[in-house]
């Protein structure tokens, strides 16, 4: 690795900030085109129903309405497609998923028809004029009942089970045979709704002259979207341009291809006009992918000294009514990461993916790994409780040692690097563990219930080696030194709040010695940027940044050749040092990247046979995932009168490898904590027995607000990753993955005097109050 000057590791203020802070950033709905017409979707009000008829004729008569289509009209016009699923598993059932329901609706919010009008409100008014006749069917909502039998979401499948994936490794029988205790629990990881503040937004423009489609859409994966759209619409890929302008949050839910994107694009090709669709918040709640939703039956074998021997799990994963892009793939992460930071000798797990009459689940910040981490971190505490040991000691007892990396886990993953004890030590020091336990004891005597909860997590990200991914796992970067010495970076990732315009400029500035303000970072436009895979799975810097580093390496190698030729020196004696090209041991010989760049541009004075120009396009294929880790400590106090759990302190010590910009890393951790804590205490997507989404507004779905989150205490350890040339690990999801179990463990610790072992999330005051006021028969003393 070449020397990286101080630009790396500096809390540079984000260059994205000025446009965002002044209201000058351009999100999809801020793009205005003359002649735009507006789409609105007719959606199912039922969780499960036969569609007897759809009549759009009255809607077409409404003033201002340009067109209206039911599924049959789309098919008659040649759009007979199924929304793609990229994740695959042996024996996976893949029912057709048309963008407009044909003869049956399977979740509330499923599109049934679309109308297009001259104004958004004319379109929405016309939705009311579409006559749909439904015959309501019994809905499959309860996950375990759905797994067991009818009613079936897809009657022709004769089952709701989409797949069963067994993972059995090591020697589970022996592992449990040597266990002194076996702790069993049913763990619920409830469904969450991602709720980016910018809902799904799209504007499609079919240029009739050029026969070319441009789709502005709020997405995390512009190139993958382009390829899929082109295939679905039967257009050449070169005839489709996807632009992700400013994107107002994604959290995994914009790592997808939605039926609405297909339909809106197709409408523009049919109508020859720009078509805009901005979903309402209600539609966003009902019809953008959800996350989590697993029920896990676990058995943990342990010896008396706290050694965990084996783990048995039966996981039911709620897939929703249809597959979206990665739906069945998400729960497959859960068994892989279930061993966490610990060494086991036996592992036996079965994952059952189940269809229900609900919105599809898919990636949501953490995507399959929070479910694993929550399970194992809760399991450790349950074992500690059973054995009367300190949960800290049980963790330590089972940690993979810092000298054991790279470490191949029982589920076959190879953790790249780590030092779990170091982050735990740091967290314990920050929180003054001994003092806290004493305080807890003291407060209990006063009838106050303090709880201390730990989570020592490891997660898998930097998605990922292509062979282990449902899509390409590499990413790309092009670096161009322009004639004036400015540097243009084209990155294949698609940031939407993560700040890579800044971190990537820092890397270029550090490596090429150019002022940061003369570096431009361009992303999110398939007509500008070479193919890239996108931003998800905490891969932006770990994969996209690594590709950038490779491109910089190529630029430096060429610049060295040019400078050596100019100086008539041996290229082996010329090097990049502190951002300048110099001759080793002769500081009088020095050239800047800009000077060499101009020579390369001018094409005069170059070594014979060397092409003019100073640019490079490189791709980074990750040889492995990266494995960030950390130790979180949550201190809560549960009010005995109200049952409210209040977080008193939250300490997060995270290790995401080398840090490019600590300001941005801290921000990502904060955001992750907010979402992870929210799962523990507040958020829950609720469907009633008919499949109505009960938690379908911000008034019903309890996203945290400013008064609920306190200031976090964050710190870090730094264990570089050997997987990529920057030594970085991902940080986007770590806070979410690590925090949920720390909070729940803290609340359970607070409630230990009441004999409470487990309460399902979210830990609402009502549930805690009942647990604290239950008598020995489990009845609540009112």
């Amino acid at each position, binding site marked *: 690795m070449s020397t990286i000057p101080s630009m790396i590791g500096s809390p540079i203020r984000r260059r994205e900030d000025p446009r965002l802070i002044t209201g000058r950033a351009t999100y999809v*709905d801020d793009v205005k085109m003359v002649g735009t017409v507006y789409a609105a979707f007719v959606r199912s*009000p039922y969780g499960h129903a036969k569609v007897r008829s759809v009549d759009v004729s009255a809607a077409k008569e409404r003033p201002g309405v340009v067109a209206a289509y039911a599924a049959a009209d789309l098919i008659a016009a040649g759009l007979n497609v199924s929304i793609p699923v990229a994740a695959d598993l042996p024996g996976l059932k893949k029912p057709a998923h048309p963008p407009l329901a044909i003869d049956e609706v399977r979740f509330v919010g499923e599109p049934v028809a679309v109308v297009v009008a001259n104004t958004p409100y004319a379109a929405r008014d016309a939705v009311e004029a579409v006559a749909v006749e439904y015959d309501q069917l019994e809905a499959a909502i309860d996950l375990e009942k759905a797994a067991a039998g009818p009613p079936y979401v897809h009657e022709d499948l004769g089952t709701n089970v989409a797949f069963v994936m067994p993972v059995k490794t090591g020697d589970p029988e022996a592992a449990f045979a040597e266990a002194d205790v076996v702790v069993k629990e049913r763990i619920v990881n409830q469904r969450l709704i*991602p709720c980016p503040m910018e809902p799904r937004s799209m504007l499609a423009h079919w240029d009739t002259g050029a026969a070319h489609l441009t789709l502005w859409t709020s997405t995390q994966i512009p190139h993958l979207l382009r390829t899929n759209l082109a295939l679905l619409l039967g257009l050449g890929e070169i005839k489709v341009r996807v632009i992700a302008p400013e994107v107002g949050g994604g959290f995994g839910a914009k790592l997808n291809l939605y039926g609405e994107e297909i339909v809106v694009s197709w409408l523009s090709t049919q109508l020859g006009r720009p078509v805009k669709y901005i979903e309402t918040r209600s539609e966003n709640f009902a019809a953008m992918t959800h996350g989590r939703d697993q029920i896990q039956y676990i058995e943990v074998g342990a010896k008396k000294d706290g050694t965990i021997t084996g783990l048995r799990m039966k996981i039911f994963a709620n897939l929703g009514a249809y597959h979206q892009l990665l739906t069945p793939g998400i729960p497959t992460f859960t068994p892989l990461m279930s061993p966490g930071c610990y060494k086991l000798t036996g592992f036996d797990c079965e994952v059952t993916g189940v269809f229900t009459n609900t919105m599809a689940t898919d990636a949501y910040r953490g995507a399959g790994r929070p479910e694993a981490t929550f399970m194992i971190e809760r399991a450790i505490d349950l074992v500690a409780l059973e054995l009367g040991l300190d949960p800290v000691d049980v963790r330590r007892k089972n940690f993979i040692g810092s000298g054991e990396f790279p470490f191949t886990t029982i589920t076959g993953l190879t953790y790249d690097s780590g030092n779990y004890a170091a982050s735990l030590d740091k967290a314990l020091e920050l929180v003054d563990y001994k003092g806290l336990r004493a305080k807890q004891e003291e407060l209990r005597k006063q009838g106050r219930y303090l709880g201390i909860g730990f989570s020592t997590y490891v997660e898998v990200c930097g998605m990922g080696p292509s062979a282990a991914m449902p899509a390409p796992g590499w990413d790309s970067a092009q670096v161009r030194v322009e004639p004036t010495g400015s540097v243009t970076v084209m990155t294949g990732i698609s940031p939407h709040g993560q700040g890579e315009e800044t971190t990537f400029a820092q890397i270029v500035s550090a490596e090429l010695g150019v002022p940061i303000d003369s570096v431009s970072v361009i992303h999110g436009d398939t007509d500008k940027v070479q193919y890239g895979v996108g931003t998800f799975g905490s891969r932006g810097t770990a994969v996209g940044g690594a590709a950038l580093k490779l491109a910089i390496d190529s630029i430096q190698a060429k610049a060295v050749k040019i400078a050596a030729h100019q100086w008539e020196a041996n290229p082996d004696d010329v090097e990049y040092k502190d951002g300048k090209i110099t001759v080793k041991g002769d500081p009088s010989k020095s050239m800047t990247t800009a000077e060499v760049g101009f020579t390369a541009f001018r094409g005069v004075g170059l070594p014979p046979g060397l092409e003019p120009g100073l640019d490079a396009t490189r791709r980074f294929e990750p040889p492995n995932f990266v494995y960030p880790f950390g130790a979180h400590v949550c201190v809560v106090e549960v009010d005995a009168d109200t049952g409210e759990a209040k977080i008193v302190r939250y300490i997060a010590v995270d290790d995401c490898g080398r840090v490019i910009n600590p300001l941005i890393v801290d921000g990502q951790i904060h955001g992750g904590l907010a979402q992870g804590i929210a799962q523990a205490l507040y958020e829950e997507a609720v469907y009633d027995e008919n499949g109505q989404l009960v938690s379908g507004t911000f008034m019903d779905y309890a996203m945290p607000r400013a008064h609920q989150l306190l200031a976090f205490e964050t710190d870090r350890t730094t264990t570089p990753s050997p997987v990529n040339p920057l030594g970085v690990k991902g940080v986007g999801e770590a806070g979410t993955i690590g925090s949920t179990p720390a909070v729940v463990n803290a609340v359970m610790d607070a409630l230990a005097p009441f004999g409470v072992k487990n309460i399902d999330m979210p830990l609402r005051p009502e549930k805690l109050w009942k647990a604290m006021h239950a008598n020995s028969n489990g009845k609540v003393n009112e």
Partner: protein
Amino acid sequence: MARTSLSAVALQLSGSGAAVSEPAGPASATATPTFVLDVNGREHQLTVDARVTLLDALRDRLGLTGTKKGCDQGTCGACTVLVNGRRIDSCLTLAVMHEGDRVTTIEGLASGEQLHPIQAAFIKNDAFQCGYCTPGQLMSAVGMVNEGHAIDRNTVREQMSGNICRCGCYPHIVDAVLDWKGRS
């Protein structure tokens, strides 16, 4: 069951024309008054359907797209603007109701290229990520201070609780407000 019907109603609302963002078409049976709207110190003559919200008038008629639509239901705060110096969810009020009022949007916060101190404090304290809720957060912060509510950390947290940030920047948002007001 009441909650169930609330959800069903909300879903229907999405298709009912409750949110209006363009001038009246012939479909509208409502009036289309002409009135003057003072936004950021400039007067604009508008002729819009009486149903048009202040938010839609700003974004779609006046081209002031800095104010964001997060829910259109008055529950997220992304559309917060100031009316006569006080905070308001611009999605919950009709444009026609504000003739004679002084409306301030994110575009009117800075003085030319000179950032308002709360904008500078947001940058200094890294109080945003994706930026979508940020204009609303900023206007809410200014309104809160105007209303005399920025007393201490807890008050600021409470008073800023109408503005959702899914990126989870709350601690830094509160830091920024306190930084601006010189309190902690």
